């Protein structure tokens, strides 16, 4: 029996008694494969009053059963409430074609009952009554249809509707233009259907509410942002008066987050959330943009430290510097719930600021939920254990200790959750992104997971036995953890294509030709994303590509045109042109990663590898990689080897300490390289041409003629 606890269960009440009874007797009650919800779903009625469910059972043999506990003095109100909830759920499931038998009947039986142990007189209640714990069994037995349990399709659909996943799957407005299942359009239609039905784990995490801190881990594409957005909406439904903060790192995610919160909330409440109660704020902010840091300064009568000052104090991490300064002060507690997305990109000092802003005396009282990408955090500059994130109290004990706090939780709830499945990328693409991101097929891996457990956390199975440095390892990603079925229609070489060009013009033509061909196959321009891996030449790439596209009547959304606020990542009927940084957190069906040659100089460096990983994992289906000459070929060889080995990764286990030493060395080198870049930039500003600068550099190395 699966339990989804969406609100606090009063410890000694009837609700607790029933839940305990159901759990203890699940087998006898034939509820082994049932889902039991507590405090879910929540709706709003016409008067905007919140209507909450108590216990809802979705069972293959009993259908849907709503139970409402009550006491005699409140019986009429509870009876009415139960009928309200009943009609809300009833009308929601009636909207599904799949669940409707005909105009009046449903494929899922739906009943409701009041549970009250006191002696009842009269019988003018709308709902049936159960008067003892054992009465529940009698009631359920009467409803039981052992001989014809609900099939998977009906059961999953009913579950999806109750949990509101329909609110999140955007109805695809795509219309088939042929019956050939292998056209890009038809593949995409199937893909979108799959993604919208796959998210049981995500929904469960979003709906389950616990008191105290909670960590959610998962790879890129496992839906962390959406889960947090659903969570925010759900908290707002449960507790309309509580103040919620949703904070994040990538400015361009703002619209997506706001839209997701709003859509999920509307699905249940029928109207817009009260934005007075939900702050969706960038972590930093600025004079023109609200942000957690900025607002906290203003509200605590402190002046925000200007960027220039922060940068000169800590050139590598100015944001960490200002958060540390802010955290030294005592800040007013402001939020009942704080949700932090992209935690891997935010400094520890920011978490300490959030800790202060969260209401509650002790760490265990503070409702802080943070989502982070396991993989991106491994070799990140920031340490990721909760102890390190939030620091220690005056006695030296960690302020947040998930293991210790877990003891406070019941009904199988957890404060440390992992999203194993990755829905965004086809398996072959994800495995290749990992191979290239780690540099597994390079001369030497650039980064590595520490141990077997870590590989399993990110959805792989170690097949070769213990991972010992110097031995050959085979690690395989199962289809279950990358469940898209696109591989049935598309071979590895359909999914990933490589192109080595002789010039930027040739490369741009290959890209624009590819775009035209994809549009002819039924894709929309906004399904397509061009990422420039080459930051220095991104403008040149986009300028050329936008012109050629315009000549074919195709518009493009160049994310570098807007220099102030974060631009929308997709605009209707425009191809998106983006740098890697701007593309973070976003996705598209067809992704062109251009200018891979520019990464060559960082091929042994984490920053370069991480960039490739981020770029490759933006695609929901097809990936196209291009670049010039030998520098591009260097990576093409790695990609080809990876595709050959996919879904496995086969490599010699490196010595992790050795990698660490090399990387530390490179880190110190890279600041020198930045200085060089800066000087080249200055020379350019002074009017030197690239050829002249090149010549000077050659002379410096004695290569001049």
């Amino acid at each position, binding site marked *: 029996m699966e339990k989804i606890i969406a609100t606090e269960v009063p410890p000694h009440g009837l609700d607790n008694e029933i839940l305990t009874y159901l759990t203890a007797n699940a087998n006898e009650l034939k509820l082994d494969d049932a889902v039991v919800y507590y405090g879910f779903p929540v709706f709003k009625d016409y008067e905007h009053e919140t209507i909450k469910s108590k216990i809802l059972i979705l069972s293959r043999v009993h259908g849907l059963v709503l139970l409402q506990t009550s006491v005699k003095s409140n019986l009429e109100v509870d009876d009415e409430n139960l009928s309200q909830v009943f009609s809300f759920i009833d009308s929601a499931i009636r909207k599904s074609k799949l669940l409707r038998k005909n105009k009046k009947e449903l494929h899922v039986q739906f009943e409701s009952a009041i549970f009250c142990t006191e002696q009842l007189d009269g019988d003018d209640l709308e709902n049936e009554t159960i008067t003892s714990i054992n009465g529940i069994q009698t009631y359920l037995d009467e409803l039981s249809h052992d001989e014809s349990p609900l099939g998977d399709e009906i059961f999953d659909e009913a579950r999806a509707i109750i949990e509101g996943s329909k609110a999140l799957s955007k109805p695809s407005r795509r219309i088939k233009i042929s019956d050939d299942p292998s056209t890009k359009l038809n593949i995409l239609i199937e893909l979108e259907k799959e993604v919208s039905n796959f998210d049981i784990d995500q929904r469960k995490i979003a709906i389950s509410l616990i008191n105290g801190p909670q960590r959610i881990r998962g790879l890129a594409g496992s839906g962390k942002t959406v889960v947090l957005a659903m969570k925010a909406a759900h908290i707002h439904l449960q507790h309309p008066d509580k103040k919620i903060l949703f904070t994040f790192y990538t400015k361009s995610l703002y619209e997506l987050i706001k839209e997701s919160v709003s859509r999920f909330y509307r699905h249940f409440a029928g109207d817009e959330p009260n934005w007075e109660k939900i702050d969706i704020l960038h972590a930093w902010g600025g*004079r023109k943009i609200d942000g957690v840091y900025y607002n906290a300064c203003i509200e605590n009568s402190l002046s925000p430290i200007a960027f220039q000052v922060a940068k000169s104090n800590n050139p590598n991490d100015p944001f960490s510097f200002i958060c540390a300064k802010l955290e030294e002060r005592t800040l007013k507690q402001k939020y009942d719930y704080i949700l932090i997305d992209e935690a891997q990109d935010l400094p520890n000092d920011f978490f300490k600021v959030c800790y202060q802003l969260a209401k509650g005396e002790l760490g265990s009282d503070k409702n802080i939920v943070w989502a982070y990408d396991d993989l991106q955090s491994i070799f990140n500059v920031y340490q990721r254990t909760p102890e390190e994130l939030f620091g220690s109290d005056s006695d030296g004990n960690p302020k947040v200790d998930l293991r210790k706090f877990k003891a406070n939780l019941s009904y199988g709830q957890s404060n440390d959750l992992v999203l194993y499945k990755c829905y965004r990328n086809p398996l072959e693409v994800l495995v290749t992104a990992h191979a290239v991101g780690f540099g597994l097929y390079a001369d030497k891996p650039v980064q590595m997971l520490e141990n077997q457990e870590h590989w399993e956390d990110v959805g792989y199975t170690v097949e070769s036995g213990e991972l010992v440095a110097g031995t050959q390892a085979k690690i395989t990603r199962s289809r279950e953890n990358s469940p898209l079925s696109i591989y049935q229609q598309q071979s590895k070489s359909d999914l990933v294509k490589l192109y080595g060009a002789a010039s930027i013009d040739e490369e741009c033509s290959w890209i624009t030709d590819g775009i035209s061909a994809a549009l002819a196959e039924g894709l929309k321009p906004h399904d397509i994303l061009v990422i420039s891996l080459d930051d220095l030449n991104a403008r040149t790439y986009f300028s050329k590509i936008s012109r050629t*596209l315009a000549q074919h009547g195709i518009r493009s959304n160049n994310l570098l*045109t807007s220099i*102030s606020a974060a*631009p929308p990542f997709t605009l209707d009927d425009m191809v998106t042109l983006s740098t890697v940084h701007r593309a973070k957190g976003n996705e598209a069906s067809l992704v062109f990663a251009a200018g891979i040659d520019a990464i060559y100089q960082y091929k042994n460096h984490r920053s370069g590898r991480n960039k490739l990983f981020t770029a490759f994992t933006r695609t929901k289906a097809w990936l196209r990689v291009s670049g010039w000459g030998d520098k591009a070929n260097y990576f093409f060889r790695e990609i080809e080897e990876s595709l050959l080995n996919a879904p496995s990764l086969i490599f010699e286990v490196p010595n992790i300490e050795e990698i660490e030493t090399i990387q530390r060395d490179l880190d110190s080198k890279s600041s020198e390289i930045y200085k060089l870049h800066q000087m080249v930039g200055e020379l350019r500003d002074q009017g030197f041409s690239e050829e002249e600068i090149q010549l000077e550099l050659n002379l410096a190395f004695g290569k001049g003629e």
Partner: protein
Amino acid sequence: MSAIFDRSVRKTVDFAYETGIALQCGPISSLKASSDFKKAARQSNSYSQVYDVGAKNQDFNLMLKDHSFFQFTETVERKDVRLAYYPNPYSFIEYQDDRQTADSMLASGDITLQEFEQLISEGNLTFDIPIIRYDLSTEQYCSKYHPAAHFHIGFRAENRWPVNRVLSPFAFFMKVLFLYHPIIWQEKGGYEKEGELENSFEEAYIRELSLCSLLEDDNFQETEGRRLHFR
């Protein structure tokens, strides 16, 4: 929308690319601005708000490397035309006493994109470069109060500076280039001929202007000719 108008848009885009000043190419035909942009143009309190919406929604035919952009719209040939130039309000930012554009700091790797965005959101910005727009609207024409063709100069200008000519996108673009980008004009257009300093842009501009005919008498009356106006 006429083929002549679209050709002139294409000529403008080609010219900007050949000169090496183009950053992004929008539609090479009459532009349909988004409803967001139209709303911002009506309601915004500051020029930068309008500019931001245009830049974010790709509401332009052409953006130059300095992030200024052009909009060219023809609803009815020779009757309803709108040509507009939106300068970049974030051109320069004071940074450590240096007048260094945030852009070049980003390009040189001195700051990350994240930090660049931060700098922009904190920066002291100058908004004092005026927007310029050419409108032709024979529908709204009134010889006393509303000239058929006119320039709007500056943000939210109720002012209409009469013009006695149907300007093409290319002619408008060249005029703007001359006024707002004199260095490009001189450096890219200038050449020496028999010891004299000539300018090929100037020649192209004059040629283009000669193709832009005057308004019909019905739309520019004799009394207007006696007032101050552009010809």
